[in-house]
């Protein structure tokens, strides 16, 4: 059996292939059931054992070689075909994409959720109370006596004598403590109301109140918890300070300031040249508040804090007019 010239013959046929149709035809004529190799394999059967093995091996080598050659060629022609198709369907990728519709949360909600997330991770549960409160829950039980300036008509919306729109979320403290025994660990988000309407006040705004009551709750714990909150909310490098203050329902009371985010503590109009921004009020629960809800103030202690959600949102997002939150201008809402 003569296999000399076989490789050359195949080579010359393959090199004459000009397109995918030629390729298909040549492939059949070489590798097909009645193709070139089929003849040789038939002839192999006539050879004796030793010769058959050598010739078989040689033919197989050529066949593999031909396989690879034709495979490469097929890929080459497929690539050309694909390029042609892609060229035909070319689009302008700079045309605008089709965006799915999606909504936005109000920045107050975003801020509230962030505050709740942080305190929830510290083990605080969410509690709620009514917007329309009695003077007892809004004032008396919080140690704000009837002659306190905060109870003037100019600050508080009255529904009727004895019933007010809550001026803070602190009544939720009282309602919660009346309803359960210590330990208490809650935050109370909600709307609050005050008779004010100007560039820095809206008649309704939002607060988050916090309360932790247990045996051995210390002022240092208040500092610890609020520091964690502030560093989570405003970044780990935010300077903060606790400053003695006065609230009727806490003692000692502390106001918490953060380093002004506008001027970085250098002093500017926003921080009134102090370098600090007041962001929340806090303190150890006043013993009178415990007495008012029937807790044993010798046995347990606690801390409370409260913050304005709008104020925190304004600081976080750089909003300079609180009324923006309530115009609900789409050009405002779409920024968050």
């Amino acid at each position: 059996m003569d296999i000399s010239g076989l490789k050359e013959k195949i080579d010359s046929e393959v090199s004459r292939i000009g397109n995918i149709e030629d390729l298909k035809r040549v492939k059949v004529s070489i590798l097909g059931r009645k193709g070139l190799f089929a003849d040789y394999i038939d002839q192999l059967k006539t050879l004796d054992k030793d010769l058959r093995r050598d010739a078989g091996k040689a033919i197989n080598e050529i066949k593999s070689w031909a396989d690879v050659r034709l495979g490469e060629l097929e890929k080459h022609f497929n690539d050309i075909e694909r390029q042609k198709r892609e060229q035909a369907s070319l689009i302008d990728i700079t045309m605008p994409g089709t965006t799915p519709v999606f909504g936005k949360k109000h920045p107050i909600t975003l801020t509230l959720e962030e505050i709740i997330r942080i305190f929830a991770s510290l083990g605080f549960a969410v509690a709620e109370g009514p917007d329309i409160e009695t003077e007892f829950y809004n004032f008396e039980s919080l140690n704000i006596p009837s002659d306190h300036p905060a109870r003037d008509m100019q600050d508080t919306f009255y529904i009727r004598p004895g019933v007010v729109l809550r001026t803070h979320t602190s009544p939720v403290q009282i309602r919660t403590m009346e309803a359960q025994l210590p330990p208490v660990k809650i935050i109370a988000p909600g709307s609050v109301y005050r008779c004010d309407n100007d560039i820095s006040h809206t008649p309704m705004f939002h607060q988050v109140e916090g309360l932790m009551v247990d045996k051995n709750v210390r002022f240092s714990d208040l500092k610890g918890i609020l520091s964690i909150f502030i560093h989570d909310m405003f970044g780990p490098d935010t300077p903060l300070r606790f400053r003695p203050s006065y609230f009727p329902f806490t003692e000692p009371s502390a106001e918490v300031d953060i380093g002004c985010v506008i001027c970085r503590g250098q002093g500017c109009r926003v921080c009134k040249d102090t370098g600090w921004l007041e962001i929340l009020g806090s303190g150890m629960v006043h013993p009178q508040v415990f007495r008012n809800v029937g807790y044993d103030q010798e046995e347990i202690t606690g801390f409370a804090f409260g913050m304005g959600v709008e104020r925190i949102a304004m600081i976080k997002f750089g909003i300079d007019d609180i009324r923006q939150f309530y115009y609900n201008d789409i050009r405002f809402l779409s920024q968050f």
Partner: protein
Amino acid sequence: MKVPIEWLNEFVVIDIEPEDLAKRLTMRGLEVEGLEKLAPRFSGVIAGTITRIDAHPNADNLSVCSINTGREELTVVCGASNISVNDRVPLATVGAALGQDFVVGRRKVRGIESFGMLCSEKELGLTDDHSGIFILPDTVTPGSVLADLSIAHDTVLDVSVPPNRGDCLSVFGIAREVASILRQKAKLPNFTLQAYGDGRAEDEIDLAIHDTNACPRYVLKLIKGISLAPSPFWMRRRITRSGMRPINNIVDVTNYVMLELGQPLHAFDFERLTESRIEVKVAQGSSNFRTLDSIDRPLETGDILICDGSGPVAVAGIMGGENSEITGATKNMALESAYFNPFSIRATARRLGIRSEASLRFEKGIDIDNVGYAAERAMYLMHELAGGTVVKGQREIFEKRESRTIYITYSNINGLLGTHISRDAVTRALRSIDLHITKEDENGFIVSVPNFRHDIGETADIIEEISRIHGFEHIPDTSPVSVLKPQKLTRKERFLNLIKEYCLGTGFYEIINFSFFSVKDIENFLIPGDDERSRYVPIMNPISRDWGVMRTMMIPSVLRCMAYNLNRGAKNLRFFEKGKVFFRESAGGISERTMLCFAITGRQKEYSWKERHPDYDFFDIKGTIEGLMERLGVSCQVGATTEPFLDHGRGADIMIDGIKAGWAGAIRDDILQLYEIEQTIYCAELRFDIILEKGNLTLQYKPIPRYPQSTRDFSFYVDDGVPIAILVEKIKGISPLIVSVGIFDMFRKEMRSVSMRVVFQSYEDTLTDERINALQEQIIGELTKIDGISLRA
């Protein structure tokens, strides 16, 4: 409270920078809100001595002065009349600048050349006094540059005094805190009261107090032969810098001592006190009284009144009467220094609408032990300023009170604060603010509280004092020792989270409106009187009529919000609000309910280069609600609506288990016009309470069918009177193998034609054509049995 550091320096030595002092006061709980640096607003002004005054030859009211500046003698024309030879005066020389834009030039005044001008205090920006030339103290050497003198410089601290710290409403009160900060001891002013006359006050005036609860201490002193005049510069300057206005020496002294010591004083014209007596009474019944500002004030039971032999002469602690006030003719004066009940003063001041510096201090509670000292201090200053003779002795009634004592342990202190403050540090801290330990044991001590500290009544108050003196910055940050318990979300929170997530995913922008609206909104929406939404809760003192009542429905505020945006060029809006509505219930009760409100207008996108977006219609708002309900595991139905504000062609009630949970649809166009809206708005309002009750968020896996599903399409003619929902329900009821029924086409020629796709699915085997064909026949059979439905060939 405005505190000039120059004044403060009289009681403590301020040896730190004002900025540092401000910071340290702030960290003590006395927040310094402002720091006003007073610097000279002039230059080129020197001190000179008047050596000669001649009348101006050409003008009656001008004089020609010779001023010796130590180096030269200058001629100056002057219009003031308060000057005399040898007076030391400020001379603005040629080229001097006064204030922002006034430069003194050399000029002829009625023919006489003037080499500068003599200045008033106002021209130098020192006080508001422009009544004459500023006469300098003799101690100022001629030729001294005025801008370099200390009188031209000061720093004024604006201290925000907490409402419970009435003791800090005086320069001395602040000085006590500053002394504690600087480890000094504040010193009261030192003076000797002299010039006693012959008689005794006890012989000349009577004093009686009817109620020592209303007035536990009253001191009355007399001074005779005074002459009213302006106060000297130093006093006027301090009063001005403290934010008050100088008036005359007598009034100024009362204000000065109040600012200095915190004790309000009142001066009566002694000759005008009938029967030369003072009685402190508590009013019984109503009457009228004319105060010194010539206004008739209504008095009520409980007001504390100062009376003479004939009737009231002052409303105690608030304002004196016209009938006894000091006038230019006053020669003899009676001075009141007293302690009045803070609650009573506050009630009266509040009712009369008068919040004076005096009433403010009485309300907060003054130092009862300081009442007599303040009276002497005022007498001394009046004598210095207005001359006259101080009458010996005084009338006084003083119901002394025990000083308060509090027992406290060290473990109370360190336990509450989370600190390890030493015994010594505790003692030192308390002593620095005049809280002295009277008795000590192993665990703690008894501390006595001075009467000026009205805010200290129990151990927590003492701990507060220790904490702020120790410094909050020296208290560590710790973690609470209690066990951390994971907090589960409440059912309500889980629902609200899902709703917000749904709204976000479906393109709604969340809005937040005020909880108030107007009665007009209820009328606009045609809500009938027997509807719960007309039972609004009114606000007694609203900001405005537009926000006069608590809202009973969400949609009016949401519409306003849409109008706001449409007016500003927006065309396509998708809004969502979660909020509360409020209802008046019987027997004075009020109920609150959380609502969800959706509103859409325009279309999903204004334009797209690929396809046109259709305008929103009823099915967009309905679909929004259906999708939400499905998400929350609620099955809801729609029913015909009776809502008066909905377009009845395109409106529906949303029902859950037969209960009305809300409505959806287009708002009537005539109502939209009331809100100045021109385009159609589709809205829905839903009761969150019902959704919360009926919803089901349980997640439970159901096996996925292993067998293929089959579909068949049907077309029917359906009369307009037959709701399509009936067909869908009917088909679904035929077999559990029917897992979904959808509408894929609807058109109207002579009759309404509806095409439906039904999906068949078995969990047990592959459905054969025969079985599906049988079901198909059954569907056709059942539906065509209904009146008004026929199969479309």
